[in-house]
């Protein structure tokens, strides 16, 4: 259980969190927002790295696992030794450490690198070692800050299946600015923009935000657009160029996009206030 209420945090004049509230139960939550929207700041507040100016966070004294946005360390140690160090910090009894470390390395598919120096691992492997470190000791709240940054497509898929494996009885927050990272794995999506929680709902509910708002218009006809709109994409079809537009008011003479873009469109509609 994690309850965040009216969180405010500003750096000098610049406000990073502006009354962020949300209530999280068990499950996987996708924290979705553009760069600079306050995702990292929120995670740092939850795990007590920075104190907020006002507001409250209740986490019921649960253990927290955290993968920071930047993670890379202890180059001189082997991966196993690094995990041992984290296990000791997390006060996992010595007798259980070996098994627990094996389990976590197995989950991130790094078992065969246990004896390699951390300094010799590739960027994606270091990222995965960070994920392993966060899930070590089976904490009940896990925060992943942009876990998929630097992972290749296959590793991203593997991360999603890892989430499914460890999800039972936990609150997991995955922050990202890439919609496809949270698609099909998160139970709920929280959209954050300029430090505010602008939408909370399931995958379906996010997609619903864009229902009937996607249009295809021919390029050069932008003048037809009225109200709030956002040009998402350029598409060529039958030798012609089309614009894939999200608009809150009907666009005359334009085709409704047949395949609606799902969560991504919903996310954009929430962000652009469409």
């Amino acid at each position, binding site marked *: 259980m994690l309850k965040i209420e009216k969180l405010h945090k500003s750096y000098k004049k610049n406000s990073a969190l502006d009354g962020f509230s949300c209530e999280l139960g068990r499950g996987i939550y996708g924290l979705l927002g553009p760069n600079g929207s306050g995702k990292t700041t929120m995670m*740092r507040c939850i795990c007590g790295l920075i104190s907020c100016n006002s507001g409250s966070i209740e986490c019921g004294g649960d253990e927290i696992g955290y993968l920071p946005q930047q993670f890379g360390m202890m180059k001189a140690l082997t991966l196993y030794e690094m995990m041992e160090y984290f296990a*000791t910090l997390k006060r996992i009894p010595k007798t259980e450490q070996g098994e627990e470390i094996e389990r976590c390395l197995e989950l991130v598919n790094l078992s065969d690198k246990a004896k390699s120096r951390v300094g010799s691992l590739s960027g994606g492997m270091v990222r995965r070692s960070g994920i392993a470190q966060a899930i070590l000791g089976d904490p009940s709240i896990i925060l992943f800050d942009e876990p998929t940054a630097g992972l290749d497509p296959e590793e991203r898929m593997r991360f999603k299946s890892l989430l499914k494996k460890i999800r039972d009885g936990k609150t997991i927050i995955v922050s990202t600015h890439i919609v496809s990272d949270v698609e099909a794995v998160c139970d709920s999506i929280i959209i954050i923009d300029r430090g505010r929680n602008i939408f909370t709902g399931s995958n379906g509910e996010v997609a619903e935000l864009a229902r009937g708002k996607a249009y295809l218009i021919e390029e050069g006809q932008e003048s037809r657009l009225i109200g709030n709109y956002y040009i998402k994409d350029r598409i060529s079809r039958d030798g012609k160029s089309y614009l894939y537009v999200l608009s809150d008011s009907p666009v005359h003479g334009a085709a409704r996009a047949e395949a609606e873009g799902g969560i991504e469109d919903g996310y954009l509609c929430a962000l652009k206030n469409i």
Partner: protein
Amino acid sequence: MRFEKYLNSLTISKMALKSLGKLFFVPQIFMLILSPLATYLEFASGSGYRICYLASYMILQVLCPFFSLWWPLLGFREHIEGGGREALLVYKKSILRELIEVFIFYVLHFLLLLLLYLLFLDFNYFPFLFIFLAQSFAFFVVSISLAFLLKSISVPFIVCLIYEIFFMGAKAPGLDFMNMLSSYPPEDLAGLFFPYVFIFVACLIILPLAHLRFRRL
């Protein structure tokens, strides 16, 4: 429970020292091998007992305070600077206890060194022990404080090195109040007692204050 906490903290200190790899042995090599060796060579070159005694004092004066930084700074460098800092801070809010454990571990080393000098060469440096302790503690506190403030371990090393170079022999009038080190064994030991107690107490106060900055990102 309390005992367990203590044991955990000792384990962390041990692992931090282990993470140093070969660098762990540098203070030991300097203090337990090179400095006795230098004394021996001094003897071998035919210098008198008094000269050797003074030369060894000077070597101790250079090495003892300076190497008090080595294990704490390098061992806990990941907690102080670098990419793993943020994750480590979540699981370990304070490293003050571990730093002090490592410092005590260091103190045991130079006690051993002084003992060796006493046993093998009959050089008794124990009257100066409180001076060495205060100096080492001051170097340790200043470097740790700088490391916390600047999130860097190289700056404290440089600062302490510069201090050693400039104040070792300096007897500049007006500056001697900040000159802890001396190349000669001080004669008026009793008169030094209070200044060094003052340094020690000041450092005791500075350390927790600086530690307040440790958790700033």
